[in-house]
């Protein structure tokens, strides 16, 4: 039982990181229809910038805020400089552009920072909390709280604020949104900034537990993408649930079946879900306009 609890805790912890990546994914996907393969690089930037600002003597909290802001700028730049100019390009082109952006950011981090693994102190110390024979790090609770908080904030933003609804309107039908006076370009910029912020938050929270380096982005992007697909690529709730599920499946597989194939099982589940429910667990089917 305590073994199961332990796997459960670790699953929810990594799942929360994946959920943050997945939330970032759907923010951009909803607004622009682009699957952003550079999403993992936002997480990397969040962790790396925090570490290097913190080592320069800035207090941790300020370093984290600074990192999130800089990553926001990176997100906005991605939209303005790469995605925006390519509007109307084919899906394959857009996939290659965001993969190019991901390779570019990774290369840049390697040049500006370094190739080492880094960590900075946890928010509430490193003494494990024991629950039912299993232990969980205080930082894990922060990660889980971060994912839930981001989900809640996004949910409230989309359902209770005018700006949030304007973003949804832009995603739904850009022309119609423009006709009712929504500045769709601003909404697009906002979506990218929010998405980058959510990703960077993930990076800031996870680094004390999982460490960070210039190349952590790709794996995280794939797992987060998996979570987003599992959740149906639409609602924040789907992303949260999908991300957590991927983390849980991974942890249980690593614990009970094979740690070598823990990454594989996530993809097998995704393939099965796509075969059986091509729109994910929580997605609605889309009609093709001819």
């Amino acid at each position, binding site marked *: 039982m305590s073994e199961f609890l332990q796997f459960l805790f670790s699953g929810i912890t990594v799942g929360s990181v994946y959920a943050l990546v997945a939330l970032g994914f759907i923010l951009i*996907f909803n607004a622009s229809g682009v*699957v952003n393969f550079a999403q993992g690089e936002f997480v990397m930037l969040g962790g790396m910038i925090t570490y290097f600002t913190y080592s320069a003597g800035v207090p941790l909290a300020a370093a984290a805020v600074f990192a999130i802001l800089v990553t926001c700028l990176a997100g906005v730049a991605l939209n303005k400089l*790469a995605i925006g*100019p*390519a509007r109307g*390009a*084919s*899906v*394959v*082109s*857009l*996939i*290659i*552009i965001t*993969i*190019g*952006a*991901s*390779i*570019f*950011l*990774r*290369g*840049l981090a*390697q*040049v500006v920072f370094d190739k080492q693994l880094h960590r900075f102190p946890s928010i509430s110390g490193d003494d494990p909390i024991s629950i039912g024979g299993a232990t969980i790090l205080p930082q894990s609770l922060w990660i889980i709280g971060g994912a839930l908080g981001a989900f809640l904030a996004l949910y409230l933003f989309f359902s209770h604020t005018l700006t949030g609804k304007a973003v949804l309107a832009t995603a739904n039908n850009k022309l119609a949104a423009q006709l009712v006076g929504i500045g769709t370009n601003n909404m697009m910029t906002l979506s990218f900034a929010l998405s980058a912020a959510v990703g960077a938050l993930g990076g800031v929270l996870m680094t004390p537990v999982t460490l960070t380096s210039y190349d952590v982005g*790709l794996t995280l992007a*794939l797992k987060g*993408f*998996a979570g987003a*697909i599992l959740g149906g*690529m639409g609602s924040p709730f789907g992303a949260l649930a999908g991300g957590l599920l991927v983390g849980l499946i991974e942890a249980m597989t690593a614990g009970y079946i094979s740690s*070598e*194939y823990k*990454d*594989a099982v996530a*993809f*097998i589940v*995704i*393939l099965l879900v*796509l*075969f059986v429910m*091509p729109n994910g667990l929580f997605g609605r089917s889309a009609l*093709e306009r*001819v």
Partner: protein
Amino acid sequence: MNGISVRTATLLALAVIILLAPVLFPSSFYYRVGALIFINGLAAMGLVVLVGYAGQVSLGHAGFSGIGAYACALGPVHLGLPPLVCVALGAAVSGLLAFLVGRPILRLKAHYLAVATLGLGILIYMVINNEGWLTGGPDGMTVPSLGVRSLLKGYGIKVTSSEMWYWISGVVLLAGAFVALNLHNSPAGRALRSLHDSEVAASTIGIDVARMKLTAFVISAVYASVAGSQVALMNRFVTPDVAGFMHSVELLTMTVLGGAASVLGAVVGATILTALPQVLTVFEDFEHVLLGLIMMLVMIFLREGLVPSLARRMRRSAP
């Protein structure tokens, strides 16, 4: 087209490039780069059929290259098969796997298809990487020789391995181009290209959309597999990286960079992405930054890829 068809022109251009490029090679190292370009070009050509003709995307084709490569590594050791049979075996296994998983996977569209193929590629990579008892795991394994060089030696002909592989991969590339170009102009090819524009429209005129997509998927898997086999036989060594995600990305980028629907474009894309790292070693740390930049810039400013965009520009400026 006035006079000669695109097919003849492309084949002629490729043959001339393959024959004349060695004149410019200052050392035998360039034969190796040339061979790598032709091999990557072959895999990219397979993706031209899938991406350019049929309009389907794949982020997992390196997986099929991995199958082709490891077939050549494992076949001679475990089954006692001669290397050439192993190339065919790898191609058969890749084709069969593509056939089996293709139907459910190809029901998916755009991003979902991308992630499903990505998952497939990663699964193949993981099996190769984790089953160390069979594949040597991350350390890789040696591959038996094709035996052509010793055969040639018997006739008194001495060639370096790089030179030999330059000519072998060149001939295979030409054969691949011939098949892809013929397909382009055949009824099956036209059916394939009709799905690219609209699957609904294609099905209303009686095209079996699912079957056509599957055909393109299997063809491209076989191309990727043969390319993987050649890399393994040329290097006499193979590591799981041949099946890795980054290799899949490279292959897709080569295809789209040169022009997804252009057979010549596949070779142009392969040339740029294969030669670039060799040139960029001068910049060392900036290799990734530049690669990422090039990928983004080409896709933003030359959306159809280099060859079709430049061809259009030339046609426009012609009187």
